[in-house]
């Protein structure tokens, strides 16, 4: 929570040009980059799901998923105002800058979340709405409020919320879940640690300042490199399952092998060279990898019907 030193009565009640909130500040609260992964993975879930959904309802489901993700981002920033103020990476966010009060951010996040879940229930189906509500609550309560400041496994368990959007897209079409969307979940869930620990290596000093128990700070870099290697291998192994179980065809199989080997190589390179530039390279590779894998799954279905 924000302490009173970060925001003063003065800079809220007597706004100057520097601390008047603009549309941009509300946009930042939505964590647009995190949101883009949610939109993309939910869209792939929607494409892969059997059955049909009216394009307007499909678009609505994706938009509501995005709003739900945005509300989770805003509620995260409301809770972490004082932590954000201590970190270089986050100190220019709207609350530490005094451009938005914690109360305004809380109101914005709650309104957005309640609206997104309610509309999902009314316009799509109740099951999808409950999945969206669970995703938001997991990110805000379990990850942000409970795990993040308590354990090095914070992002491992917190990865559940990031891995749920493809299930939301799938459920919007079918109203239920099956093994195939669970594999999509498993891919993102196993991918999350390598991705975030690569970032945590780069922001090690920042996390120290904020007193957050990220793996590189607590267990050391060597153990982090090994953990990254293990989770990268696991991710690539899991990414083969849609092909092995016959949910996707040879096109996807080739993509999973090609990009999987590249992802593993980057993790091995970090383990061997142990330099910051290798962590940065792995971080960007992990984003590129997930995009490629999910695009591969969607294209395989759209172009070849998913049979090899």
């Amino acid at each position, binding site marked *: 929570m924000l302490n009173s030193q970060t925001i003063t009565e003065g800079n809220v009640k007597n706004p*100057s*040009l520097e601390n008047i909130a*603009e*549309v941009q500040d509300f946009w930042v609260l939505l964590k647009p980059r995190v949101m883009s992964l949610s939109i993309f993975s939910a869209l792939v879930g929607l494409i892969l799901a059997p059955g049909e959904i*009216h394009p307007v309802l499909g678009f*609505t489901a994706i938009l509501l998923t995005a709003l739900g993700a945005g509300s989770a981002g805003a509620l995260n920033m409301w809770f972490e105002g004082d932590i954000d103020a201590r970190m270089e990476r986050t100190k220019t966010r709207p609350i530490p800058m005094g451009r938005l009060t914690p109360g305004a951010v809380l109101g914005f996040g709650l309104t957005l979340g309640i609206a997104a879940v309610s*509309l999902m229930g009314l316009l799509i189906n109740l099951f999808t709405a409950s999945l969206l509500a669970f995703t938001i609550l997991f990110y805000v309560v379990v990850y942000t409020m409970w795990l993040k400041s308590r354990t090095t496994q914070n992002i491992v368990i917190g990865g559940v919320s990031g891995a749920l959007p493809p299930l939301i897209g799938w459920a919007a079409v079918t109203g239920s879940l099956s093994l195939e969307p669970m594999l999509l979940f498993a891919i993102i869930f196993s991918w999350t640690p390598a991705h975030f620990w690569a970032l945590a290596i780069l922001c090690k000093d920042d996390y120290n300042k904020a007193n957050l128990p990220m793996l590189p700070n607590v267990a050391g870099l060597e153990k982090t490199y090994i953990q990254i290697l293990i989770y990268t291998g696991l991710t690539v192994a899991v990414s083969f399952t849609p092909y092995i179980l016959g949910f996707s065809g040879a096109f996807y199989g080739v993509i999973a092998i090609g990009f999987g080997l590249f992802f593993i190589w980057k993790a091995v390179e970090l383990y061997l060279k142990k330099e910051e530039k290798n962590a940065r390279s792995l971080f960007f590779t992990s984003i590129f990898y997930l995009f490629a894998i999910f695009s591969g799954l969607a294209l395989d279905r759209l172009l070849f019907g998913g049979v090899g």
Partner: protein
Amino acid sequence: MPDRSEMHRKMRGRNFAVLAVLVSLVILIAVATYVKLGGGF
């Protein structure tokens, strides 16, 4: 002292952007409701 006209310009821009987003959302919700209730295009 802040430049009042600059401040007003920013606030006008903000209000317009928020209004545009809200109107778009209302239209989308109306169309989605129409489709959900069985209406076709």
